[in-house]
């Protein structure tokens, strides 16, 4: 009989061992077994088994069952303490590696924290408003060429209709004007300030924090509430309440309240005052004259706050009939399925509609920032894994001894995890310090106002979670790998490190460098694109060009005086008027017709009314024909077109051709003769393709609201400005001298891309830095491991060059593989990104080859330090051991 056959049913024996008190288990088990054997001999296996089972069950009683806590006091704290002690000593003993590990992880975590804060800020946009979940903007939606569009501008009559006939379907409604920038004067002080005219429900609905006055402050006629910052700049420390301010030197308003500035991550953060609705009507008398029942003129915004019980879709269907169409538009509206929609507040920021179309930019950016944060953390984790496993040889003996003494695998895993936890904890502390240092620069870069939420529990929980996840992620591979050593081979010391042992490490290095190379490529292409757009011929001269908006009616009739005075000042070369800034496509119109016009071709041109001198002032590039001339009265029906318009119309020789414009308001037809063709001016985003544009003399459609001033070329702007200001003060004393530079305005169009570029650069540099840290550590480790081999090679005649090549080769091969993997991916990603721009750079393989060369050079530099150090070491020293 073998021992196995003599055993009673295992499961019951195991059950008994599990429940029995540790002090009793041995002797009682002995008794049970003894009886069992006796029974086997006397009554047979079946009976013996049955009695055994019976005994085990009857033994399950108090006194024999183990107490819930182990009877002997094991203090696991001491064990954990020892883990941490060992970990701490390991950190100190290998200062260099620890620095690489902790530093790399700290940088990774900093990026993660910054990115998380940024994402949090994006996601919590507008949450300042307490009714966040229930506020929506009234919009029109439908399908244009298969694409959903959404427009938020509404007719005045829709607002009236909602208020009068549909008020039961929502709790509150607030109409707002378009954003206005009037001159607000309080006594002597005046400032141009961004504001809105709104219904009196606005402060309550959007839960403004009122410092002075109440949330119903706007219900008084001609009242205005100011943001605290604006109130301070206008009134200083005086109490602003009940003071009178003058708007645009035309209307008076009483200050009835002051509210806390809305935080930067709210939609209305840039609005510095809210005026009552009657002020809006007072300043725009045309509304009451002809817009009250107009179903075509969309110029107000309408916000609704729903009842708690209603969902957006319920409210949408209830409100749908409120949207009415002008008979002339009814067919078109039906065709594009135009209907009323509610655009919830939670979508305003992340799913914005620009010119009616959904702009995926913000949500893509949020995903991208999140992904990049994770990738950089991954890079840092890979460093950690590589260094720990690479150095595992040193811990091999420790693991062997621990296992021999009695550690089980799970305890070793626990030990290595506690080690990685300690490292990540250090890294987290460093990362928090780094984050608070970098935050101002980051805010600057990202255009945000983020603070570290030291007091928020959620923040600390998140930090702790990240720490635990990271230590599990970074520690998993070393923990599982190191704890798997067989104690006998580990202690014998002649371990085999075959090809397979280093394979995971190599894979990780390839992953790391692939990410880095992709990032380098993306950054390079982003900068190429920005540069490409910056080098685009602009078509006008933007240096020394000043632009001033005529904000108050005081400007009217003063232009000629102003122009004469300015030219007299000696610093101004030319002055002109135009409908919009030279850097923007202010308005567009259709209704154009010409000889040979294909009727199916919708002609929508950018239209701009200018004065005679505009061409000379902005210095546009005349390609053919002539500019407007003041001496030629016939020029009032002359028109100047750009190249794109000439191409669009398909005119070989456009000069002298006739062009008609049927005006949509009253059906009037205007006759124009083409005087000249200019080079395409960049009037909108420099990334868009050129739009056809026409310029005609002022006098019809559109007030020339902007004055352009060309400063004499060799006069310094700082010298010219005071003189120009003096002229303004003299001619129009009531208006503030508020000017813009054309080159600044132009540069602003690059702001978004430049910000993306800067962010990409930062991320790339950090990614490369982290990857190189890891590579540096690995290289130094390899060099250290092969010290003896190198010594012998040198004794046998190898040169420093030989050693260097031998050590570098392995890493360079890995980076080459990474390049081969990442270039196609980067190419794909960047060609997708470039699809967003119609004026875009061609992707050249040169860029990609160059980035690969850069990556390899960086690798060589990183590895060489260690390789050469190993190469020049005296072989006598390295061989003296043993």
């Amino acid at each position: 009989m073998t021992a196995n056959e003599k055993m009673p049913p295992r499961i019951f024996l195991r059950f008994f061992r599990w429940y029995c008190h540790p002090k009793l288990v041995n002797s009682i088990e002995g008794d049970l077994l003894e009886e069992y054997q006796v029974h086997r001999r006397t009554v047979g296996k079946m009976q013996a088994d049955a009695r055994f089972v019976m005994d085990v069950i009857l033994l399950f009683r108090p006194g024999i069952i183990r107490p819930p806590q182990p009877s002997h006091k094991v203090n696991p704290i001491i064990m954990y303490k020892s883990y941490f002690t060992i970990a701490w000593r390991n950190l100190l003993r290998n200062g260099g590696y620890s620095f690489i590990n902790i530093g790399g992880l700290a940088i990774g975590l900093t990026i993660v924290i910054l990115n998380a804060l940024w994402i949090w800020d994006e996601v919590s946009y507008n949450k300042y408003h307490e009714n966040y979940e229930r506020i929506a903007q009234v919009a029109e939606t439908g399908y244009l060429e298969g694409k959903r569009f959404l427009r938020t501008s509404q007719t005045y009559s829709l607002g009236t209709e909602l208020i009068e006939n549909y008020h039961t379907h929502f709790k509150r409604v607030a109409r707002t004007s378009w954003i206005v920038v009037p001159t607000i004067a309080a006594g002597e002080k005046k400032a141009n300030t961004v504001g809105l005219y709104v219904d009196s429900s606005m402060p309550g609905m959007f839960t403004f924090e009122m410092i002075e006055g109440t949330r119903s402050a706007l219900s008084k006629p001609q009242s205005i509430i100011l943001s605290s910052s604006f109130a301070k700049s206008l009134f200083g420390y005086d109490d602003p309440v009940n003071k009178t301010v003058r708007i645009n030197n035309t209307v008076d308003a009483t200050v009835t309240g002051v509210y806390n500035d809305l935080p930067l991550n709210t939609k209305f953060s840039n609005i510095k005052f809210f005026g009552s609705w009657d002020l809006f009507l007072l300043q725009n008398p045309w509304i009451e004259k002809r817009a009250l029942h107009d179903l075509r003129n969309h110029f107000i915004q309408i916000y609704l706050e729903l009842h708690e019980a209603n969902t957006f879709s319920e409210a949408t269907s209830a409100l749908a009939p409120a949207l009415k169409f002008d008979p002339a538009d009814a067919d078109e509206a039906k065709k594009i399925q135009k209907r009323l929609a509610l655009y919830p507040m939670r979508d305003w920021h992340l799913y914005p509609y620009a010119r009616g179309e959904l702009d995926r930019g913000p949500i893509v950016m949020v995903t991208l920032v999140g992904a990049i944060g994770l990738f950089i953390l991954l890079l840092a984790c890979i460093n950690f894994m590589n260094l720990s496993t690479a150095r595992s040889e040193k811990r091999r003996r420790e693991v062997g001894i621990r296992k021999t003494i009695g550690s089980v695998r799970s305890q070793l895993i626990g030990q290595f995890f506690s080690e990685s936890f300690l490292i990540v904890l250090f890294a987290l502390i460093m990362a928090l310090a780094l984050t608070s240092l970098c935050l101002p620069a980051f805010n600057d870069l990202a255009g945000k106002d983020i603070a570290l939420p030291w007091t928020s529990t959620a923040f600390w929980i998140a930090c702790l979670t990240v720490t635990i996840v990271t230590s599990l992620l970074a520690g998993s591979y070393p923990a599982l790998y190191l704890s798997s050593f067989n104690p006998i081979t580990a202690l014998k010391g002649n371990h085999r490190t075959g090809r397979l042992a280093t394979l995971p490490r190599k894979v990780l290095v390839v992953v790391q460098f692939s990410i880095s190379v992709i990032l380098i490529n993306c950054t390079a292409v982003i900068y190429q694109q920005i540069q490409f757009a910056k080098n685009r011929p602009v078509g006008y001269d933007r240096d020394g060009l000043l632009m001033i908006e005529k904000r108050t009616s005081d400007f009217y009739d003063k232009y000629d005086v102003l122009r004469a005075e300015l030219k007299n000042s000696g610093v101004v070369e030319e002055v002109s008027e135009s409908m919009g800034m030279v850097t923007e496509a202010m308005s567009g119109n259709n209704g154009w017709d010409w000889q040979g016009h294909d009727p199916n071709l919708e002609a929508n041109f950018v239209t701009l009314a200018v004065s005679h001198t505009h061409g000379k002032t902005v210095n546009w590039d005349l390609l053919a024909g002539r500019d407007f001339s003041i001496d030629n009265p016939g020029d009032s029906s002359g028109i100047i077109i750009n190249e794109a318009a000439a191409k669009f119309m398909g005119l070989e020789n456009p000069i002298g051709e006739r062009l008609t414009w049927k005006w949509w308001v009253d059906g009037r037809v205007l006759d124009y003769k083409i005087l000249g063709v200019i080079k395409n001016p960049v009037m909108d985003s420099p990334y868009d393709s050129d739009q056809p544009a026409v310029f005609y003399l002022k006098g019809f459609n559109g007030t020339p609201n902007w004055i352009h001033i060309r400063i004499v070329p060799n006069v310094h702007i700082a010298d010219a400005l005071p003189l120009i200001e003096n002229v303004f003060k003299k001619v129009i004393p009531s208006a503030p001298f508020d000017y813009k530079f054309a080159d600044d305005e132009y540069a602003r169009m690059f702001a978004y891309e430049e910000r993306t570029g800067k962010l990409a650069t930062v991320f790339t540099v950090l990614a490369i830095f982290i990857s190189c840290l890891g590579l540096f550590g690995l290289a130094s480790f390899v060099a250290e491991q092969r010290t003896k081999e190198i010594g012998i090679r040198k004794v046998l005649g190898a040169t420093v060059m030989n050693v260097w090549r031998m050590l570098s080769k392995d890493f360079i091969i890995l980076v080459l593989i990474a390049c081969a993997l990442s270039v196609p991916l980067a190419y794909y990603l960047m060609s997708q990104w470039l699809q967003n721009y119609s004026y875009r750079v061609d992707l050249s393989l040169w860029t990609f080859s160059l980035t690969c060369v850069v990556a390899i050079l960086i690798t060589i530099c990183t590895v060489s330090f260690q390789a050469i150090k190993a190469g020049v070491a005296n072989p006598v020293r390295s061989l003296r051991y043993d």
Partner: protein
Amino acid sequence: MRKYQLGEFEEIVMLTIAVLHKKAYGVAIKNEIQTRLSRKVSMGAMHSALVRLENKGFIQSTEGDSSEDRMGRPKKYYEVTAFGSKAIAHAKETRDSLWRSIPTVALKLKTR
């Protein structure tokens, strides 16, 4: 006296330990009770009685040798402590005094 709290089965176990003197371990005690008293004893009942007695300080145990049947598990030998012997002596005495106090008629014991 509360001090010598002793149940009937506990008393039997203690007496058996005393009988087996130096050879009293689990199986032996069990077998002894079963043969002498012709009553079934479960391992559970006996071991919990032993635990109780040891906790009360009436008996003490030492781990001893093993046997092939026990597959190396040690035997746990029990012996009655001085305190324990006082306890059974006390039990016997109380009973005896009770016996003595019974008027002969009350029980009408059949005498053989």
